[in-house]
């Protein structure tokens, strides 16, 4: 594990982090962004870029956001709803584009009042 995105990103998806990532390892789901644990090079460029302070190094992740670890793992390594294969490590977000699905944890978060 490297840097992870907490639930503070849900329904915000500012995407400033995507611009900063040197290896294009931040992927866009329906409601949140996710950092590929396989592709992240641990450089830390994304963390200060996030206006909602949703990104943490895994070693700094506060207990209330600990679900981000399994949520991230599930997003990349379990098949997302409507798919048979997991996302895996495609080698860059640009190659696959936005994915219209989320990890079960993010999908279960209450939606903000519109």
């Amino acid at each position, binding site marked *: 594990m490297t840097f992870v995105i907490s639930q503070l990103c849900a329904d915000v998806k500012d995407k400033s982090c995507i611009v900063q990532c*040197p290896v294009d390892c931040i992927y866009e789901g329906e409601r949140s962004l996710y950092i590929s644990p396989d592709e992240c*090079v641990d*450089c830390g460029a994304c963390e200060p870029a996030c206006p909602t302070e949703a990104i943490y190094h895994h070693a700094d992740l506060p207990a209330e956001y600990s679900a981000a670890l399994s949520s991230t793992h599930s997003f990349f390594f379990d098949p997302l709803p409507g798919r048979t294969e997991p996302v895996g490590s495609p080698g860059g977000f640009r190659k696959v584009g936005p994915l219209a699905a989320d990890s079960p944890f993010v999908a279960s978060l209450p939606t903000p009042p519109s």
Partner: protein
Amino acid sequence: VAIVGAGPSGLYAADGLLAATQLPVEIDMIDRLPTPFGLVRYGVAPDHPAIKSVARTFEEILAQPRLRFLGGVEVGADVSAEDLRLCYDAVIYATGAPLDRKLGIPGEGTPGCCSASGLVSWYNGHPDANRDVRLDARSVAVIGAGNVALDIARMLARPARDLKSTDVSPRVLDEFRRSKVERVYLIARRGPDAAKFTPKELRELGAIASLDRVVHAGDLAGLDPAASADRRVKANLELLGRWAASAPSGQPRRVEFRFWTRPVAVIADDRVRAVQLSRACDGHVTESLDVDMVVSAIGLRGCPVPGVPFDAARAVIPNREGRVVHPDGSAMAGVYVVGWAKRGPTGVIGTNKADALETVASLARDYQDDRLGERARGSIEELLSARSLDLMGVAGWRNIDRAESELGAREGRSRCKIEDWQALRELASGRGPLNGGGIKSEATR
């Protein structure tokens, strides 16, 4: 388009240009070295293999068919800025910040004093590095409070066995094995709350088992982590606070932090003996620290390119959104800048992506508005061959890359750096296409 410098900012600029569908662009990436990737290869510490693996992304950029790599060409020596302007419709400078800021104190420059870039390029196997670096000092003072200072302190403090799996050259590995270093002092002018290093880097120092970390509680007085609005500062203060509260356990090496302290003079005869420090505003000496080596890591500076404007005070190429401007403020048509040469030595590798995209957007707009100025009317191939320059292209780099991987495999690691100019040149001068795609021939240009 010519891009001068094949480091991160130049590569991101190339990637941005190639992705801009409205630009029918072909790129020559020019570097004075036969090896691309700039500071990823020669700046990122060897014990940071994950960050060095960003090179995989750069290889993909380099492999694009509309890009050529012209290694072994030094702008300002082999070809001039004017030459480039004649041969290309636009030129982007990605020349970085290769020079060190000086301490400006007496004794700086005596044997045993070295600059951050001198030491970093040595342990990274840069072909221009001074090979005579000896780690025969028992006590080392590292001046500075950024990640470069911390990288150096950590590299010196690490047991040599940790470097066995890295890409350092056999010569560098041997010198680390012979290292006599016992104490490393980190000397920071300002307080722990103003230190520029990141918690991640600080934590790595905490992960070295055979190391004592010493922080003086007095340096942290009045600084409450909880009161800090900045998450980075908060995490740094918490970590430093924990170290201040724990006693050294007699480990073979020790890193000691000295905040609120600046060096006043280096005391040396035939070699460094001590560094005099001041904690006072008036600069009078409050302490003399016995050390055998002083490394200054207080920042980097851009280097002027002859024929290109330079802001000597800020040590950058003056620009507006990446368009190089003359001293009178007017834009220099068709000339652009990216990365540290543009904004100064700040940020991490990824910071250069957004920075490069801004410059690419300026260039694209100027192309559409027909403001690139005079179009190319010379041929770089003719010019280089008239000057009998050995061209080292992507194929040459692949030869080096392969040779380094083979050397590494013999020692059970993924790579082992070749640091000798002659060897690099011989490997790189082998015939082959200049571009990774191998599609574009000389004749079509």
